[in-house]
């Protein structure tokens, strides 16, 4: 008797649950539609476009061929260009990590008023357009008589002017500046999770300040540095404005090449193939390194 009553109650509960079970989907639907409409569909179309044919006079032909992918795979020009893209991104990431992590640490140790002031100084550039910031670097670099060269020469660091414009060096310098806030913010977030007494604890146990940094602080902010590195790397590898202004037509990276194929050569399928390859490579690198980080720090930061 009581078993039957239980079953009836369970059934009633199940029917009552059915509309509730659909509710999350209904609530997520608007955002999901937007996501599909503006991201998934255009992406799928881009991938499909990369398999289409293109000719100078016939334009785009909606057929399925591997011509573009074959060209990217065999022509060493593309290999060199992708290597350059990732080399620049990796160097930029390294520079932002080496400069940004100590910067965030020092910032975190400042007292109230100075802390907010310098946080504003670091975040300020994000309020200015990337184009304006990069043009600023172009002015500073500007040929042999650029301010940077004059400064370095008057300091006696270099004998003859360095070339910054249209070089990888210039691109890395400008990109590192543009990307620095992302690294600082990421490390800053990790520092906020640090126990404020943890350095005192290490100090009382007899650790010297360098040892505290190396053994106690560094391991704890490493996840912040690594997630900052993922952000900076993916943004640098797909950056367009900075490489376009500093590198120009002479020194192309994946993003500027895709742009040129689309808008100058009008070879949309090839541009789509370059863009797709860049996306796939980035996703693989980001997902791969994320998995590595999560496994490495799983035990500590759950």
């Amino acid at each position, binding site marked *: 008797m009581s078993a039957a009553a239980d079953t009836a109650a369970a059934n009633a509960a199940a029917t009552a649950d059915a509309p509730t079970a659909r509710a999350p989907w209904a609530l997520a639907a608007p955002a999901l539609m937007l996501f599909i409409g503006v991201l998934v569909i255009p992406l799928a179309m881009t991938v499909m476009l990369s398999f289409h044919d293109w000719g100078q006079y016939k334009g785009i032909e909606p057929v399925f061929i591997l011509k573009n992918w074959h060209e990217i795979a065999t022509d060493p020009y593309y290999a060199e260009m992708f290597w350059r893209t990732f080399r620049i991104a990796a160097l930029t990431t390294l520079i932002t990590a080496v400069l940004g992590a100590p910067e965030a640490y020092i910032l975190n140790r400042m007292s109230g008023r100075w802390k907010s002031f310098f946080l504003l100084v670091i975040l300020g550039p994000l309020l200015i357009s990337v184009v304006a910031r990069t043009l600023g670097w172009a002015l500073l670099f500007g040929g042999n008589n650029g301010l940077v060269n004059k400064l370095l020469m008057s300091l006696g660091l270099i004998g003859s002017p360095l070339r910054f414009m249209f070089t990888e060096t210039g691109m890395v310098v400008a990109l590192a500046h543009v990307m620095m806030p992302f690294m600082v913010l990421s490390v800053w977030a990790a520092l906020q999770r640090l*126990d404020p*007494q943890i350095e*005192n604890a290490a*100090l*009382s*146990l007899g650790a010297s300040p360098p040892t505290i940094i190396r053994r106690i602080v560094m*391991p*704890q902010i490493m996840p912040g540095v690594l997630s900052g590195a993922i952000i900076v790397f993916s943004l640098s590898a797909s950056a367009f404005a900075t490489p376009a202004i500093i590198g120009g037509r002479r020194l192309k990276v994946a993003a500027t090449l895709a742009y040129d194929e689309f808008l100058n050569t009008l070879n949309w399928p090839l541009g789509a193939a370059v863009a797709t390859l860049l996306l796939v490579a980035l996703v693989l690198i980001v997902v791969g390194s994320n998995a590595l980080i999560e496994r490495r720090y799983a035990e500590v*930061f759950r």
Partner: protein
Amino acid sequence: MAYLELDRVAKQFGAQTVVDDFSLAVGKGEFVSFLGPSGCGKTTTLQMIAGFLDPSRGAIRLEGRDLTAVHPARRGLGIVFQSYALFPHMTAAENVAFGLEMRRVPRAERAERVRAALAMVGLAGYEERYPRRMSGGQQQRVALARALVIRPSVLLLDEPLSNLDAKLREGMQIELRQIQRTLGTTTILVTHDQNEAMSLSDRIVVMSQGRIEQIGTPQETYEQPASAFVSQFLGKTNDFAATIDRTNASARLVAGSWSAPAPAGFSGPVTISIRPERIGFGDAGLAAKIVTRIFQGNHWLFQCESECGPAIVIRQNDGQTQPAEGDAVRLAWRVDDMSLRAGGAA
């Protein structure tokens, strides 16, 4: 001779004096508590001993040596922080071993001492656990083991039990006391919990607004509070305004309809301070009416409205019939049980 000595220590932040004129001599093996409300300067004093803050004035000496000249990393003190401040990226054993590593203790001896320290705090078998995977009480024990394994000259405890729930806290108090007794480590505990201070310490330093109110054994500070602040902060107390009546040949101390022969050395308005458990219901004494009666298992708590203002009375639950709410009663107490201060009621 004093083992750890604080001599007129003061700390100022800008114009604000946080600790002033703090003098204390702690004997070797003694357990001393700094007790006071938050902001009374007890943690600041502890941080000055630890070396995280420099005193503005005064001296801190350990076995006669000036401690303020020693770098915090060289002081060799064991500290347990309120938040425990364990290293989250190290296992329990690595946390405990850190201090030994810094002292360049050989690997084999280090492993043995870490094992012994964790066993002492009841965490044998937890060596490879990370702090995040331990309960608050277990983290607390790791922090204690980490502070004790370096054989500190002084153990400093900064509100170590305040993050534990009541039951666990009681258990840890007993354990902490046993460990301290066994090792004989000179210990200073900072706390705002009067029960904790009383059950753990040999002596209590009651602090208020950066100054020492009283230094004494738990019993002394409870039975003979040196100031109104101490009597109110350590447990519940009743303050009654009273006068010395000299109209007759023998002067009498009068509070409402309660009176007793006046002790020498007082005149004019005075304040009677009496603990609630020392007041009894009698035939004569201060007239009062019981407002609420609360049963608390082993005792009854009465809140009364007396001639001299609100009063609280605690009676043991000894099986006797107790007055009910609304009853008119007379409050009486022995003269020996009260303490008397000059001036009106606080």
